[in-house]
């Protein structure tokens, strides 16, 4: 890969509530090499030009989920989006859409975490087991039923992509519904009935209008749209079973 240094314009939507009433665009000229990510561009600004520019980051390798932001209007992890792919610029960078901005590129994560906590995102064992009994048996095929949905890094790009979440932030949303499905689809788990209350609620799967952009932007191929769709099927089954059997049905 070339090591030549070129420069690119990066425009950042700044918002500093202690200094300004409304967001403003600020432009920086950033030297870059072909192997530099958008995150490295922002780090160059912070280190050498303007220390007040604020953004979250940590792992640099698309696994910690911290550095989601809008890059030229699309939700991206800035650490695996490369400046070479955004030429000639200027690159426009904003905080993730659909979330309240706390400052600059930092959005409030609270509501997302509240939703995540609400769906009982932990194994509720179908058959409790002691440590002495060893591990549950789970075949590779059973693992495959939920593995993809367990790969969500909580980066929230899918929320920024979801038009429904943009309209109503009470919607549980794609990432958390995928996580819910991850546990429901786990052969060791018996908590589906408890979680279906969330699924069936107005803010659950039925809020989704099947746009599918969530799965397009997911950096980890979790395919939350697929998880939501599966739960629409489950929810519909629950609905009809309610007429023939007591709560939960089968």
């Amino acid at each position: 890969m070339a090591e030549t240094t070129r420069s690119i314009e990066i425009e950042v939507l700044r918002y500093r509530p202690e200094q300004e009433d409304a967001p403003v665009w600020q432009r920086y000229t950033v030297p870059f090499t072909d192997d530099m990510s958008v995150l490295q561009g922002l780090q160059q600004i912070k280190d050498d030009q303007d220390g007040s520019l604020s953004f979250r980051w940590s792992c640099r390798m698309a696994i910690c989920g911290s550095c989601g932001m809008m890059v030229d209007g699309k939700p991206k992890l800035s650490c695996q989006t490369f400046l070479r792919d955004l030429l000639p610029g200027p690159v426009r960078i904003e905080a993730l859409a659909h979330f309240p901005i706390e400052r600059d590129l930092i959005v409030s994560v609270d509501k997302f975490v509240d939703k995540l906590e609400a769906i009982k995102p932990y194994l509720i064992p179908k058959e409790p087991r002691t440590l002495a009994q060893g591990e549950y048996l789970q075949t590779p095929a059973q693992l495959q039923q939920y593995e993809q949905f367990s790969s969500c890094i909580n980066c929230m790009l899918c929320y920024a992509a979801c038009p429904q979440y943009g309209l109503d932030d009470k919607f549980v949303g794609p990432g958390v519904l995928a996580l819910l499905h991850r546990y429901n689809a786990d052969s060791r788990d018996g908590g589906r009935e408890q979680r279906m209350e969330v699924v069936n609620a107005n803010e659950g799967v039925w809020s989704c209008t099947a746009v599918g952009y969530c799965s397009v932007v997911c950096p980890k191929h979790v395919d939350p749209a697929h998880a939501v769709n599966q739960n629409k099927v489950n929810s519909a089954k629950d609905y009809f079973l309610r007429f023939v059997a007591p709560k939960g049905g089968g």
Partner: protein
Amino acid sequence: MPTTTMQTLQVDVAIVGAGGAGLRAAIAVAEADPSLSIALISKVYPMRSHTVAAEGGAAAVTQPHDSLEAHFHDTVAGGDWLCEQDVVEYFVAHSHEEMVQMEHWGCPWSRTPDGRANVRAFGGMKIERTWFAADKTGFHMLHTLFQTSIKYPSIKRFDEHFCVDLLVDGGRAQGVLAINIASGEFQLIQAKSVIIATGGAGRVFRENTNGGIVTGDGMALAYRHGVPLRDMEFVQYHPTCMPGTGLLFTEACRGEGGFLLNKDGYRYLQDYGLGPASPKPVNKAMELGPRDRLSQAFWHEKQKGRTVDGPHGAVVHLDLRHLGEKYLRERLPQIYELAVSYLGVDPAKAPIPVLPAVHYTMGGITADGRTAAPLPGLFSVGECSSVGIHGANRLGSNSLTELLVFGKVAGIEAVAHAKAHGHGDTATLARLAQASQAAALAIIERRGSGERVATLRREMAQTMEDGCGIYRSADTMQATCDKLAELKARFKTVQVDDHSRGWNTEWLLAIELGYLLDVAQAMAHSALARRESRGSHQRLDGFEARDDVNYLQHSLATYAGDAAPIISYGPVKITTSPPGTRAYGAAGEQADAARQAGQSAQETAHG
């Protein structure tokens, strides 16, 4: 403008750091006694913690032909006999139950066809015993622990709270002071027990695999309050990292059969006592040798001019092509994507350029086998801690297990301590906290002509690489010590652009730089003082051999303010394994055979 308001809260147990170790400890406290209150404090949301980046797996004796003795021996010999052997015994004996516990909590371990947890080969491990979840083991463990922690109402999280001080009164750790990052307000958390679980300090080096948050915070806090940092000269270089960024290509690449090639396409490790080179992976040989030996071999190849020149310096090739795309996508999916998206290399079609980068700090906060620091009320666990299992070189896949086994121990010990002690005097702690708050605020209130944070950070990282890299000599280490003293002086007038309170990340970077500089000093001075070569600490200036007569001892770096740290030494606990020859490949087989023959002769004699 800055105010002096401070929130105050009393809890039974405060835990700083909510990565794997902190979360495991919090769950242990909650399970031991649900009536105890817990504050789990982290400068990031728990799922952002650096445990997330661990790839390869977690070791635990699992197969019928494996044994606790074998895991013990691999660990102790791998650590070049600087391990606390009684602690290693406890560790290997409790590893498997922790893996099963994680399984019960939902961790998506990779499976064998009959549904049992699968194990893979790992460097320096004689028998396959590394549990894994594809090549995202740390990610899955962290998310499993975080999500499981939500079950326990007694765990109160302080997400995005940055710890600026440990509060010590009457010779006892009694709480912490943290900044609520979003508001910039201060939070005093008074506690009967404090557990530090803040991870390592790899960011003191230039080229490293670590996330930006791995800045040695907890190490520096304990150190500044008189707790010695132990064995800090032992810093692990991981041999297969991405040029430029240092991002990690897991050891599992080699566990699955990957080769390391020099510029001639030659598997050069056979020239460094790791051979013979067989086409299939052989445990504890060639590419499955330990990390220190592999990184050292890279250095020698570079000296011989047999590495490949790349835009970021010398590299060798990690060749996975013979494993095929299908297998790579199943076993190493993240590695596949990293190579494609960051380097433009398809690992099924071309070798990946790699070089060694700093990965792990073997040393840390001095802890006994039950995680207790010499300072009553303080416990530590995980990479920040030196509980004594890694010695002079950690084996891959021992650290994820460590944070589970000792996370639980730390939780249980913190409970016992909290039950045996009441809260101290809140007013005294508040006075201490006010002073710490003023010191922290001084950084953003300072307006002058000081230097930028990044300037000092870069110089620190460069001098650490120059003086405390894979091979070391007295003159370069001394130069690094001198440079660090100079940087500490310059740090006193460091200048930030940002003078606001809410989400002032430049302020936090400045405080982190202070932590990094203290930890770097402990590393450099400990390294200079150890006049031998052992594990990851290798010298070129007349101290090339291991010296068990003088240095079969832990180094202890004690903070001395503006002066250089004081380096002293403490004993190493030997139970059943006297220091022996550390050998790998064919030579290792011979050494193992000799050791076993010796043992059975001894048993016969005693029988």
